[in-house]
């Protein structure tokens, strides 16, 4: 039915099967869209946020998707700037994942603000001293970069590529992709960083505040570094999931091993920096403001030391160690565990840097504020996930996303179930 659109030589499931799958996920999208409209028309009272929790699930989701979407900029940087050629086999997918993550982040931001129709004030009336301004500018500019990076892949669709202009455009864009990738890396560095800065500059919040370099608190660099470190984990994880779902091998092991190795070393260096930062903050910064470490991890029903240990040791040191050692890295199961832990770790870090900040009491007579999101918040947070699944499914079906797919799958003559 849609065979004319499917890349030549690629095996795809039947269209009805595909359509049913998409329909199921679309139902989730619709649920999310319904919640989104509720938030827009009835206002943010639809959420369980309050004056203590001005930043909550959404901002976490924003930070998390941007962190895991960091695979796109980092892989692009490696591929185009550092000329690691093997990565061309995964760069398309990394870009698509990045595109999904960033478009989701922008969508969530559009729901999250109290006056969505005034959202553009952040650009027009920008306060350049605000980390959030930096986030907004770099985020949208980088989203433009991702779109640009995504376009050639779209144009490589069998039908689109028949159009000479599109064909040439895709070709030419490939030609200057290094420039775009460099710009993207520059922008990413700043917005990943400024997302970290969002928390780090809150000097009224001793749990968040960090010393730093010039105007940038240490969290600025930690966020960039962690996105670069854990982003590829997420790319690998989604690739793995796609491979499992399609039942095909899509990327060669040497590519996966390479990216995993790079990710592993990034994680290790990051986690060392993170440990130093945490120790300095716990022993110097917080005490100078009158806080002991235990203040941040006790007297409440949720946030204990477990979260600190999980984030740093279980989801930082462990995946880092697995991925830097050849034997463990090349063990598919251990590698999978490592990348899952890595993704959890970076998401947990963003959680801590959004929600725990809001939860910790600062005034001596204040109390911990805990919060549980409303269904509207959950639905709108799941929305991007469902949307991402659809976009990946569509892209995989119609675009030549994985250059190695045919090579890896031609030997098998039998059409397998997808």
């Amino acid at each position, binding site marked *: 039915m849609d065979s004319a659109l499917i890349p030549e030589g690629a095996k795809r499931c039947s269209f009805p099967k595909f359509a049913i799958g998409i329909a199921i996920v679309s139902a989730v999208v619709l649920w999310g869209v319904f919640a989104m409209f509720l938030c827009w028309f009835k*206002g*943010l*009272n639809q959420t369980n*946020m*309050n*004056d*203590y*929790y*001005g*930043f909550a699930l959404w901002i976490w989701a924003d930070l998390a998707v941007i962190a895991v979407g960091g695979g796109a900029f980092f892989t692009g940087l490696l591929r185009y700037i550092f000329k690691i050629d093997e990565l061309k086999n995964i760069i398309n997918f990394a870009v698509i994942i990045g595109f999904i993550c960033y478009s989701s982040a922008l969508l969530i931001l559009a729901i*999250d*603000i*109290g*006056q*969505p129709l*005034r*959202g553009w*004030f*952040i650009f*027009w*009336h*920008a*306060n350049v*001293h*605000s*980390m*959030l*301004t930096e986030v*907004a500018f770099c985020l949208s500019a980088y989203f433009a970069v991702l779109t640009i990076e995504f376009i050639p892949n779209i144009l490589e669709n069998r039908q689109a590529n028949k159009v000479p202009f599109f064909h040439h455009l895709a070709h030419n864009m490939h030609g200057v992709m290094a420039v775009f990738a460099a710009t993207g890396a520059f922008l990413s560095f700043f917005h990943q960083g400024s997302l970290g800065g*969002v928390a780090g*500059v*809150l*000097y*009224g*919040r*001793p749990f968040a505040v960090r010393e730093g370099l010039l105007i940038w608190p240490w969290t600025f660099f930690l966020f960039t570094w962690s996105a670069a470190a854990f982003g590829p984990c997420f790319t690998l994880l989604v690739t793995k999931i796609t491979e499992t779902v399609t039942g095909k091998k899509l990327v060669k092991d040497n590519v996966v091993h390479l990216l995993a190795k790079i990710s592993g070393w990034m994680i290790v260096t990051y986690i060392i920096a993170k440990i130093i930062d945490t120790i300095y903050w716990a022993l*110097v910064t917080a*005490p*100078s*403001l*009158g*806080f*002991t470490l235990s*203040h941040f991890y006790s007297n409440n029903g949720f946030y204990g030391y477990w979260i600190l240990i999980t984030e740093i040791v279980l989801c930082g040191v462990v995946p880092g160690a697995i991925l830097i050692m050849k034997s463990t890295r090349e063990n598919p199961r251990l590698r999978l565990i490592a990348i899952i832990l890595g993704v959890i770790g970076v998401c947990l870090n963003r959680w801590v840097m959004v929600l725990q*900040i*809001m939860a910790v009491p*600062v*005034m*001596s*007579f*204040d109390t911990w*504020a805990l919060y549980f999101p409303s269904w509207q918040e959950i639905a709108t947070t799941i929305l991007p996930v469902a949307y991402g699944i659809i976009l990946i499914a569509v892209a995989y079906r119609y675009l030549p996303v994985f250059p190695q797919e045919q090579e890896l799958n031609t030997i098998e003559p039998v059409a397998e179930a997808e």
Partner: protein
Amino acid sequence: MKQNNNKAHKFGMVIDLDKCTGCGSCMVSCMSENNVPFKEDESNKKDSITWMSVYKLTNGKSFPDTQIVYMPRPCQHCGGKGDHGHSPCVSVCPAVATDYGYDTGIVSQIYTRCFGCRYCMGACPYHARYFNWWDPKWPEGMENYLSPDVSPRMRGVVEKCSFCYHRYQAARDIAYYEGRDDIEEHEYQTACTTACPAGAIVFGDLNNPAHQVHQIVKPDPHPDPRNKHVVGKSRNPKVFRLLERLGTNPKIYYLSEREWVRKAGDNYLDGEWDKIKNYHGATLSND
């Protein structure tokens, strides 16, 4: 700007916690002065807009040694680190919907500019900022008491105490009209100050030695030698500020004879307080 600051005002407040009775007049006076809306259920204090909020503190001891004190908490109008005007909230607002008036020391909030990102609320450790989760609605007929001096807010924006800035504007109007350079202490007083039946709130210009608030607080114009971010520390040993050690430099000072109350104003490590409590105010730092 800061150089020709010698004529600039720095409006501030000192609240005598030993006089405060927790009666709530300041809160209601503020609400009715500033067109603060109300809704059916206001018992969730985390979504209830009260620019002036009164906290109840206890000394944590058990019966019969327990003690309580009430602490009114308006916006602290922080001067920010080093008192340079980079208040925690002002510096983070992405759209300049809040700024620091160097001529008055007052932190503004402009509702028509705010697009409701709530970053400022996250930045404020005092919970002095409130979000309009709902559209403000007045029961039929009650819009009649709304004051034209303060703009009613819409859903989806942040609001907070303005030190009744409109009263400053009104006072300035008279001064302009009468050809005076400046206003008198009594001409500009906030609604909470004038309402307080116990006279616990004193408001005025911290920069003006003739003003009562200056005389009580005796602010130290120099940075605290032990924490360079802290400026304007009180030289009155009974006076303290909330979370002074963070370097937010609030313009709300509190006064209490009771040591436990003064200690509750900030966070201290074990044993730290005993070492510094007799130093005027109480801040120490590692630098």
